[in-house]
């Protein structure tokens, strides 16, 4: 466990140290994945379905705010839909506008959740999103998740019916609009998914905030079970076409991801819970403190004490070197050792010491 925690700390440190470079790279990867999925699924406009163009757009996204990834993905999808049918593009544009005006005026932070939902849904593993969102965000994340599902089902159904839409003539514009809207209005699968994900987010959020041991683990497992149950019940009642086996595997993957998130965000040691009670003028406090699992950094202190020159003559005797190595917390482990110096300092008295961050010479 100690080694894993050490790796975690190293990864965190590496991210913090290189955040300036890593963040654009991550944004680039997200934008590239998102636009590639859109182009792969739709890909009706040959001019836009071009790797060079996708790379340029992704590069632009890497230096722009995260909301731009959603914006560029939406633009690419609209261009492809325009090549398929003007009516389909107009309906999808209207729906994008509705989503933007109603929900995303409040903040662009949620757009990331929308994007992840749509991307993971296209990879057939959207079950990760509600569990992880319940763990790290609040119940309001239901809105971007629902929007992400709407966008995914809308585009997936248009892609499925593309041949039929393409075959329709210009005089059947209303039929095209109806076909696009039907993919949302009469879609029981979408309805079941939105209900299941919303309930899962609430369950996970409520349980993980409770003052119980292993609350995060309980929350994610309960969320996964609730999610599967609702999908199953929805499948039985509305006769949707869920692959239950796929949903089950997806949920297991979601649990693994949630565990990974817990490891990075909420790694605590329940064996060392401390319960304290105190009071002030106004309140009694019953506090439960759970220590975080951390690996104490190895701190090495080297003290080199050289003997002073005496009577004008240089002392060429090897100086005694005391090397103190301290590992872990102060009171846990303490070791001292004495060894011969690696270098001989001739001249005035020298004191040299160092730790992980500073090196000082006096």
């Amino acid at each position: 466990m100690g080694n894993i925690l050490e790796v975690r700390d190293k990864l965190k440190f590496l991210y913090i140290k290189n955040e300036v470079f890593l963040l654009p790279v991550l944004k680039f990867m997200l934008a590239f994945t998102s636009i590639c999925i859109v182009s792969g699924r739709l890909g009706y406009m040959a001019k836009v379905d071009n790797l060079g163009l996708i790379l340029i757009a992704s590069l632009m996204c890497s230096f722009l705010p995260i909301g731009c990834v959603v914006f560029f993905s939406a633009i690419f999808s609209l261009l492809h839909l325009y090549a398929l049918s003007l009516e389909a593009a107009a309906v999808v544009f209207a729906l994008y506008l509705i989503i933007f005006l109603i929900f995303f005026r409040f903040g662009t932070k949620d757009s990331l959740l929308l994007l992840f939902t749509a991307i993971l849904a296209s990879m057939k593993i959207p079950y990760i999103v509600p569990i992880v969102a319940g763990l790290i965000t609040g119940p309001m994340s239901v809105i971007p998740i629902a929007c992400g599902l709407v966008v995914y089902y809308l585009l997936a159904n248009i892609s499925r019916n593309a041949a039929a839409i393409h075959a329709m003539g210009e005089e059947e514009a209303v039929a095209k609009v109806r076909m696009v809207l039907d993919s949302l209005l009469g879609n029981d699968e979408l309805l079941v998914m939105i209900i299941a994900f919303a309930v899962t987010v609430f369950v996970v959020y409520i349980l993980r905030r409770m003052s119980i041991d292993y609350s995060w683990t309980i929350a994610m497992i309960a969320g996964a079970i609730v999610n599967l149950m609702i999908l199953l019940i929805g499948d039985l009642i509305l006769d949707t076409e869920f692959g239950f086996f796929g949903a089950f595997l997806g949920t297991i993957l979601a649990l693994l991801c949630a565990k990974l998130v817990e490891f990075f965000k909420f790694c605590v040691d329940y064996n060392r819970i401390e319960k304290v009670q105190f009071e002030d003028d106004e309140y009694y406090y019953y506090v439960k403190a759970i220590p975080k699992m951390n690996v104490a950094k190895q701190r090495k202190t080297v003290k080199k004490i050289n003997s002073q020159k005496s009577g004008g003559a240089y002392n060429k005797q090897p100086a005694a070197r005391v090397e103190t190595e301290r590992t872990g917390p102060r009171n846990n482990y303490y070791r001292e050792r004495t060894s011969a110096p690696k270098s001989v300092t001739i001249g005035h008295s020298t004191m040299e010491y160092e730790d992980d961050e500073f090196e000082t010479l006096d």
Partner: protein
Amino acid sequence: MIKKERVILMTKLASYEENEGRHASKISRYFRGDYVSVHLLKSWVCITVVYALLAGLSILYDLETFMENLYKMDYLAFAKELIKWYVIMAVAYLVAVYIAYSYRYMKARKSLKRYSQNLKKLGSMYHR
């Protein structure tokens, strides 16, 4: 001499100024009523556009029936129905916006108060 406590506090303050503080100071320029009113006004425009889009899409969805009944329908009743749904939708949305922005304003004020307390604390550290 570097004081660890002071450096930590300064880092916290600088981080707040760079991120959350920038947003909070913008909000704090307004009175609560003005801030919420401006956003209610913007939201009213948005919900009107959204309603127009939804109404347009629903008419387009069933355009044939709509065209068939165009000359037979009771326009007053149709307008009443449209307005009724518009009012219901707008009121529901604006109530949600009112709650969201009031909460946001309160949160910003609270964080600014904490920020100024920390600034005072930092100042007192220099005068020790």
